[in-house]
Structure formats: structure tokens, C-alpha cells
């Protein structure tokens, strides 16, 4: 068993250059732009969301630079408003929501369930084009003056007061939303109908369970946001008072409908990351996952309960005390399935034969940072404390721990785990580990000071602040610059790996999933022979004692 504890075995001598795979089966721009192969579409998405990530990242950089000094000497207040709006809108709607489902999900889901493609390949391609239209429109909005409402578009500011490109911005978001819906639809039908023979529901990899739960949220929440923005557009265009108290409309209705989408959207952004971690931990502990069914069902219950907690964004907005109490209680409840996952992951590591390759480093980083984000979330679910830190940097730090510390770490973990499968090449392990370390340190340094700032009372969304907050702000900006380096590094060494000679072979991590039983990069049809599944997804050498769930 000693060989299994060091799974990384670059197989430099393998020379399968002539074998047909999805990359060399056809060449030329047309073969990419008109492809219906889920693997190629996954790569198209990879490039598009990466562009959007850097656009959102540039906005974040300017925000942090401006906050180096208390007087906001870099940009004006108006520009600052447009910068944080751009950062929020691009990162939420054009990066975090689509990134893991459309890149890793698109690429891996059919491979992990032994299918030849997603159920609706043309719809899959269409969803990429729809995403592109939304993203281009959004970029056009940003470069033609931007929008200053924040990513939340609260009325009456967005409907009456703001003179920026509100309508084009919400149009772009609605368009991107349709792309989410089609991806979700495709995933649900694929999981139901295209599983390989013998692949029962409880033999599905946990990443598939998390994508399935994510898809349900995408399908049921996104249309509500679309209709909300239709109503907003009507109010803005015709000056009628759907959400305007002066005309007997109710701004709270806007917030209710907005958070009915946007809170579940938080789970769109974190569930796939949880799924990735559930794949990686067993592989790098050489041990079956602990509590398979608990993790699977906790994904579903997060999706369900996640629909019932939106009111906790409105504790100070004027909703009734009774509503606030119920939403507070439900917000505590949604923490239970998340905690179940963390405990099960920890138990998976226990007595495992743990090794620290890059995907594992990112996955462990995910667990630590997500736990901090989750625990501060519990603080925020408490009514009294929430009022104290509402709209402060405490909130900003909390959700960045979930979305960046959680989801982006999870995405990086997954990208590094499956990169050899996607490209057939192995990246430089040394540089990759270094980048995992830099990202972790940079992240902590960026956002830990913001918890303190918020608790001391620094409000979010201001371009100036009292001088006594400067030290913590400088620390945060310093951390952000480290974080920036950490995100640029993978860009360099992952691209370098494409031109390198290190072939990964079909299964560099000695992992058990179906996706590892086909060559890397996979052939156009995914599998040379349709696999027949006879056991659970994590049959590693060490079993988790007392856990019979995956049998």
C-alpha cells in the first residue's frame, strides 16, 4: 500500500500522441465555435469566466488601492461607487455563479457518470453563447460609464435616483441568468437519464450530488430575479410606482424578491465547491469518504432550506419582528447541513494516509476558510449582533470568506485536480503548491482585518473612512496584493504546462472515479467502452470504519 500513499506519478514516458482525443479530433475556429462536445464547451467557458474574473479583479484592486488612505485620494466617490458595483456584479453574476458548474461541471459531469455527453449538447452550446452575450453587454456597460447601484440594485435608488446604465446592466444579468437556467436544466436531466449501467444514485460521486443540488437552485431561483428586473425596468422606463412608496409601492417587495434569488445564489456559489472538496479529500487520504449519504443529503437540504432564509438580509430593512425571528431561526438551521459536511470531511481525514499535493492544499484551505465564514455567518444570523454589524466590513469579510475563501479555493482545488484530465498535461507541482500557500496567506491577510474593521464600525461602500482605521486598511490592501500574485501565478504555470512535456497519464492521482478510467485528454466519445459500475465512488485502500453508507 505504500505506493498508494504517494499518488502523484508523472508518466513522462507515455507517448500516446497519436491517440484521438477531443482536442486533436478537429482543428480550426469553426470546430470550436460550433462544437457540441461538453468538454470543448467547458474549455470555452473556462476562457470566458477567466476573462470576467480578471475584470472583477481589476475593480477589486482599484478599490483596495483607494482604501490605502483615509481620504480616498485615488478615485472620486462616484467612481468608487461604480467600482464596487462593477466588482460585485461581475464577480457574482459572471464568475462565481457560473464558474464551477459551467467549467468543471460541464467537463466532468458526463465523465463522472459514464455518459457520452450532457443530455442536450446544442442547448449546452447555446447557453455558452447566451452567457457571452450577457458578458459582452455587461462589459459594454462598464466601459461606457458603469453603474453605481451596487450589485443589489436596491430601489428607489436604482429606479429613480441613479443616472447610470441600470437598464443595460440588469438586462445583461437577466441574459446571463438564462444561461444558468439552461445549464441547470441540462445537468438535472443528465443526472437522471444518462448514468452508466450500475451507477445507482448512492454510487454517484458527491460532486455530482452537489451539482444536482446547485442545478435545482438555478432552475427555481433565477426566474424570480429575471421577473424582478422586468418589474424594475418597467418602473424605471414608465415612471410608475411598483416599488416606490410615494406611489404606494413597497421597496421591501423588491428586497424580498431580490433575496429570494440572491440568497439561494450564495448556495449556487458554494455547493459546487463543497462537492469538489468531497472528491479530493478521499483521494488524498486514500480513504473512503466518511458519511457518504449524510454529505449527499446535506447538499439537497442546503438547496431546500436555502430557499427559506432570504429574510436575514432584511433585519434592519423594516420587515416584521416575527418574520425576523423566523428567518433567524431558519438561518441557524441551514448551518446544520454545512456543519455536517465539515465534520464528515474531518472524519475522512482521521487515520487517513494524507498527502499534500496541490489540490489537497486548496481543499484543506477551503475547509478552514469556509468554517470561519460559516461561523461568522452564525453570528450574523443572530438578530442583535446583526444590527450591530449590519452593512459594515464585518459582512464584507464574512461573505468573502464564503465566496473567495470557500468557492474560489474550491474552484482552484478542482481545477488543479482535474487539469491533467482536461489537458493531459501535468503542471509544475512546486509552483502550484507555492501559489496555494500564497493565496491562503494573502486571503487571510486581506479579510481578517476587515472583520475587525467592521466590528469597530467601519461601514461598507464608502470611499473614505476615519483615520484611525488606516492601519487595518493598509494591512488588508497589502494582503490583497499578495492574493493578486497568488491568482496570477496559476495563470502562468497552467499555461506553461500546456507547452511542457510532462504527460499526466490517465490517472495521475491514482483516484477511483470513472473520469480517471479513460485516457487524458479523453476521447471525443469520453469512453472507449461504456463503463459498468459495480461499487461506490471512493473505494480507496483504507475504509472509513462504521460507515456503510456507500455500499
Amino acid at each position, binding site marked *: 500500500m505504500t505506493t498508494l500513499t504517494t499518488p502523484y506519478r508523472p508518466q513522462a514516458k507515455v507517448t500516446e500522441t497519436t491517440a484521438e482525443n477531443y482536442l486533436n479530433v478537429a482543428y480550426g475556429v469553426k470546430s470550436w465555435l460550433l462544437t457540441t462536445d461538453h468538454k470543448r464547451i467547458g474549455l470555452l467557458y473556462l476562457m470566458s469566466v477567466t476573462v470576467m474574473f480578471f475584470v472583477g479583479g481589476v475593480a477589486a484592486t482599484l478599490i483596495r488601492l483607494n482604501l490605502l488612505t483615509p481620504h480616498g485620494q485615488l478615485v472620486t466617490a462616484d467612481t468608487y461607487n461604480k467600482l464596487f458595483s462593477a466588482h460585485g456584479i461581475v464577480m457574482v453574476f459572471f464568475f462565481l455563479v457560473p464558474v464551477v458548474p459551467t467549467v468543471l461541471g460541464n467537463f466532468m459531469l458526463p465523465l463522472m457518470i459514464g455518459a*457520452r*455527453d450532457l443530455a442536450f449538447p446544442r442547448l449546452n452550446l447555446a447557453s455558452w453563447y447566451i452567457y457571452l452575450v450577457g458578458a459582452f453587454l455587461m462589459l459594454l456597460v462598464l466601459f461606457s460609464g458603469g453603474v453605481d447601484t451596487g450589485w443589489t440594485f436596491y430601489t428607489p435608488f436604482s429606479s429613480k435616483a441613479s443616472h447610470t446604465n441600470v437598464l443595460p446592466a440588469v438586462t445583461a444579468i437577466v441574459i446571463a441568468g438564462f444561461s444558468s437556467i439552461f445549464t441547470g436544466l441540462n445537468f438535472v*436531466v443528465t443526472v437522471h*437519464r444518462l448514468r452508466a449501467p450500475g451507477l445507482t444514485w448512492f454510487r454517484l460521486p458527491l460532486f455530482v450530488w452537489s451539482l444536482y443540488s446547485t442545478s435545482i437552485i438555478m432552475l427555481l431561483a433565477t426566474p424570480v430575479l429575471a*421577473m424582478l428586473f422586468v418589474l424594475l425596468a*418597467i418602473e424605471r422606463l414608465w415612471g*410608475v410606482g411598483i416599488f416606490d412608496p410615494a406611489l404606494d*409601492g413597497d421597496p421591501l417587495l423588491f428586497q424580498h424578491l431580490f433575496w429570494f434569488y440572491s440568497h439561494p445564489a450564495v448556495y449556487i456559489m458554494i455547493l459546487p465547491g463543497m462537492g469538489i472538496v468531497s472528491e479530493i479529500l478521499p483521494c488524498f487520504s486514500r480513504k473512503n469518504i466518511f458519511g457518504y449519504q449524510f454529505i449527499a443529503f446535506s447538499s439537497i437540504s442546503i438547496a431546500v432550506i436555502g430557499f427559506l432564509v432570504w429574510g436575514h438580509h432584511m433585519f434592519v430593512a423594516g420587515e416584521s419582528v416575527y418574520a425576523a425571528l423566523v428567518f433567524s431561526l431558519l438561518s441557524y438551521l441551514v448551518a446544520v447541513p454545512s456543519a455536517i459536511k465539515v465534520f464528515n470531511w474531518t472524519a475522512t481525514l482521521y487515520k487517513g494516509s494524507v498527502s499534500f499535493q496541490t489540490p489537497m492544499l486548496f481543499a484543506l484551505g477551503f475547509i478552514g476558510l469556509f468554517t470561519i465564514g460559516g461561523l461568522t455567518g452564525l453570528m450574523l444570523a443572530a438578530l442583535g449582533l446583526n444590527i450591530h454589524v449590519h452593512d459594515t466590513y464585518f459582512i464584507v469579510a464574512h461573505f468573502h470568506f464564503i465566496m473567495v475563501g470557500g468557492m474560489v479555493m474550491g474552484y482552484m482545488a478542482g481545477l488543479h485536480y482535474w487539469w491533467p484530465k482536461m489537458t493531459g498535461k501535468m503542471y509544475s507541482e512546486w509552483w502550484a503548491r507555492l501559489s496555494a500557500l500564497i493565496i491562503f496567506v494573502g486571503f487571510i491577510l486581506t479579510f481578517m482585518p476587515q472583520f475587525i474593521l467592521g466590528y469597530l464600525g467601519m461601514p461598507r461602500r464608502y470611499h473614505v473612512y476615519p483615520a484611525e482605521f488606516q492601519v487595518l486598511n493598509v494591512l488588508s490592501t497589502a494582503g490583497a496584493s499578495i492574493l493578486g500574485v497568488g491568482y496570477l501565478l496559476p495563470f502562468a504555470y497552467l499555461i506553461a504546462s500546456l507547452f511542457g512535456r510532462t504527460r499526466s497519464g490517465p490517472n495521475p492521482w491514482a483516484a477511483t472515479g470513472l473520469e480517471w478510467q479513460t485516457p487524458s485528454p479523453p476521447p471525443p466519445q469520453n469512453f472507449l467502452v461504456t463503463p459498468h459500475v459495480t461499487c461506490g465512488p471512493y473505494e480507496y485502500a483504507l475504509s472509513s470504519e462504521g460507515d456503510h453508507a456507500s455500499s
Partner: protein
Amino acid sequence: MPVRDRGLWHHFDSLDHQADSNLLGMWVFLATELLVFGALFTGYSAYRWRYPAGFEAGSRHLNLLIGGVNTVVLLTSSLTMALAVRAASQGRQALLVRLLLATLFLGSAFLGLKAVEYRQDYLERLVPGLAFDRGAWQELHVNPNHVQLFLIFYYVMTGIHALHLTIGIGVLGILTLKASRGHFTPQYSAPVEMWGLYWHFVDIIWLFLLPLLYLVSTRTSFY
């Protein structure tokens, strides 16, 4: 490789498997659609509960005759659509084309009548933001803001419903063309069945819109 059936994608095992997946896809899509209208029903309910008088007054000014006739038209179109699905699964090509045409005609009739109704609403100054007479409502001792809210939801809900119907008519047009070329066989009739589901869904939404918009007040006359 065995010979593949016509119209079968490479990742499905058989036409049955493919048809089954397509139908599930449509059901899932309809779940999304339900939330599209769900958001609007929620907004409508919130204001209807808060401003019952304004909603009643607004509702009384809608044309129940056209609304009622349209309901019959749309229900009949669902019947012809259901029969079309049956004809497709039995491979009765000529009947299928005729039934699809009938459905198309009835759907278009609905939209035509709806357009007439919208025009009438406009002439009666019932369009907030474009043609709306606040004073007239004040004379009736009804808060014009509340009537406006009712009318906005009336236009958004019926407008989005009409948009769905328009898309349905477009798709039925394509299906009719394909059917007239003998494209559908008893083994390959899933597209007709799928879009039949969509058609019935749009119909069912109307069955909720009718009472919410036209019947919320107790009326004494049909006009």
C-alpha cells in the same frame, strides 16, 4: 457500430431513451417557468391583499367578455393540441398537420383578441405611464395609485403570458412544417409531445390569470 435510428443523438442508447430525456427536460423547464409566473403572482398577491378596493375597481374595468371568449379559445386549442400529440404517436400524418394548424389558428386568435383588448384598454386610458387618468379615479373615490398597481400587474402578467404564447406559436409553426414533410413517426414523435406540454402549461397559467385579473370583483355587468 450498429445502424443508428434517424434523429438519434450519439449519447442516447435508443429513440425511447432520447424521447424520455427530452420530455423530462421540458418538465424541468416548466418548473422554471412556474417560478417566472410565481414571482409575479407573489407581487400581485402582496398588493391585492393591501389594496383590495383599488384592485376591485381596476378589475371591473377589464373586458370580461373578451377575457371569457379567450379562455374558451385557449382551452379548445389545448384540446386540439392533445389530439395532435395522439395523432403523432399513431403516425396519422394528415390528421396531425390539420390539428397542429387548428392549434396554431386558435392560439393566434387568442393573441388577436388580446390585441383588440389592449387597444380598448388604451382608449379607456387604463395604461399607467402612457395613458392614465388619475382624476377620473379620484372622482370615483378610488386611490389611483392602487389602480395603477393592479394595471401594471395586469399588463406584465398577460404580457409575459402572451410572449409565451407567441413563442409557442412559432414552435408549432416549425412543427407543422416538419409534420407536413412526414418528419414524425410513431417512434419519433417526442417533439410534438414536448411542445404539447409547453402549450398546456401556457394554457393553465391563463386559467389562473383569468380569475386573478378579471374575476376578483363581484360584477353586475359583463362590460
